[in-house]
């Protein structure tokens, strides 16, 4: 394809995508990971990203949108630089997950699925993230934070706020 010359993505990611579509028996298999990686780099799956991914995989934009709407981690609107995901599912709920979620709303002054005006934080109540034995847990971007208390959660959010770049290990 010709996207190499006019790609939206960084050279590293574009090269990765070029390879990914060849790794599977069918190109389309690369779609879900590509969308996630594209979102990590671009912040959201906007129209231009969808168009390029569709062309790379060889399906229509509509088909790509159908897939995006199915997966809870994929989104078309930008989120905060730090996307705070609080698990309130059963194991976390039993150990204070709801309290953590309430604390996040209070501290960040936003509701579920909202972003702070400075674009630094967004908040989402999420389903089980696989941290049950270390509950309650929060995931900020891709980083797990476990065995939290409201106090350690405060400290964690402050850390992200002040260092603002601490967790550049993952995407957003």
């Amino acid at each position: 394809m010709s996207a190499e010359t006019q790609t939206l993505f960084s050279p590293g990611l574009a090269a990765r995508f070029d390879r990914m579509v060849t790794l599977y028996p069918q190109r389309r298999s690369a779609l879900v990971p590509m969308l996630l990686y594209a979102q990590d780099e671009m912040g959201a799956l906007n129209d231009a990203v969808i168009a390029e991914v569709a062309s790379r995989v060889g399906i229509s934009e509509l088909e790509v949108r159908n897939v995006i709407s199915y997966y809870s981690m994929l989104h078309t609107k930008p989120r905060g630089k730090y996307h705070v995901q609080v698990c309130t599912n059963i194991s976390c709920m039993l150990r204070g997950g709801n309290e953590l979620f309430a604390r996040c709303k209070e501290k960040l002054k936003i509701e579920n699925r909202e972003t702070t005006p400075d674009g630094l934080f967004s908040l989402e109540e999420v389903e089980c993230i696989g941290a049950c034995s270390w509950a309650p847990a929060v995931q900020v971007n891709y980083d797990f934070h476990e065995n939290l208390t409201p106090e350690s959660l405060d400290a964690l959010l402050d850390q992200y706020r002040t260092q603002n770049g601490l967790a550049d290990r993952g995407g957003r």
Partner: protein
Amino acid sequence: MAYLVSHPDEVKVVSSRFGKGAASIETYLALDGYSSARKAIELGSDGIIAEMKASNLRGRGGAGFPTGLKWSFVPKQSAKPKYVLLNGDESEPGTCKDRLIFEHDPHSAIEGVIIAGLAIGARMGFIYLRGEYRYLLTIMERAIDEAYAHGFLGKNIFGSGIDFDIRSHTGAGAYEVGEESALMESLEGKRGIPRIRPPFPAVVGLYGGPTVINNAETLATVPHVFRIGAAEYAKIGTERNGGTRLFCLSGNVERPGVYELPMGYNLKKMIYEVGGGIAGGRALKAVVPGGASTPVLLPEEIDIGMDFDQVGKAGSMLGSGGVVVLDDRVCIVEFALRTMRFYQHESCGWCIPCREGTDWLKKTLTRFHAGGGVAKDIDNMRYLAENIMGRTLCPLGDAAAMPTIGFLKKFRKEFEDHLDGKPCAYAEQGDAALAPA
């Protein structure tokens, strides 16, 4: 940190390399790694399947289907390529064991996929991790690269003349994709909508080819079966329930954690001795023995062995190994509501009984817990749940219905106590914290 725990009653098989740096192939090799794949090459397809049958290993994803038998269903001759698919979309609430496998022993999963591939005559395997497990995907990708560099993957693996490739793959957030046919759809780059069966994946699976799909723990166990011997492995567990299992203790226990215990280990002992009892010395109210979808057990019902058959006899399921412990402060109505909110959120919406049923149950439970319940709701919810059962393409409908029926049956009084606008007399935690200040 997903820290490791330990207890003297543990029998460390799958977790034997945890905490030892085995994510690095050199360490893995020093700890007998990839010796089982070599053995499997010598044994050949029939020999591998015979060993797997003798091991009495049953699927760790929840259904407990005998692994050797599953592999034997794959036709020897196939016009289409065959595939192995490792299900690492660990999402059942209460379950966090596969995470430790991927973090501490990714090569055991790779080796398990290779052996499954040798058994069924596949040339390609996939390791599918849930999207939230990004740091584990990084570990897995590195492990796969190492295996290629050592000649354990790719062309002519272990000098056997056999070619075998493995691809790692990430999901992007969907519980439903942990269901085998939805998993295949997702890997094919589609929405995770389950397929109608038959045909079963062993005959028509990924890309239309015969496919073996196993849980991550199941496949990570496979090399250990060959390492210690099928007969020895079977001996660890109980009759028809070979080996050990990673139990994820969570909730109101003193020492939560993932413990590897023999199949058939007593549940009461697991909670009171291994887990150190109920946190803060409180009283036990209930146990969800195998992840959110399994029917609740009362304190007087937990003196049972934790294997597929014994938990089944007690009216629940061993499920995915997630043992969730509830103390006497938990409101069962609220717990049932949280469980249903999960299934309603995760229902893919394809089958009407599941899509509408979970939504209706969530709305009823929400109203009910808020004090707006009427007496007939209790029977209506049960009727609704019972009519989801068995009427959906995949088990998500059943997974939503089964725990609901259990809560309504065993805690009816607690539901009745919520009637007539009475404030919840049970919740001392949970959404009490969400009440407006």
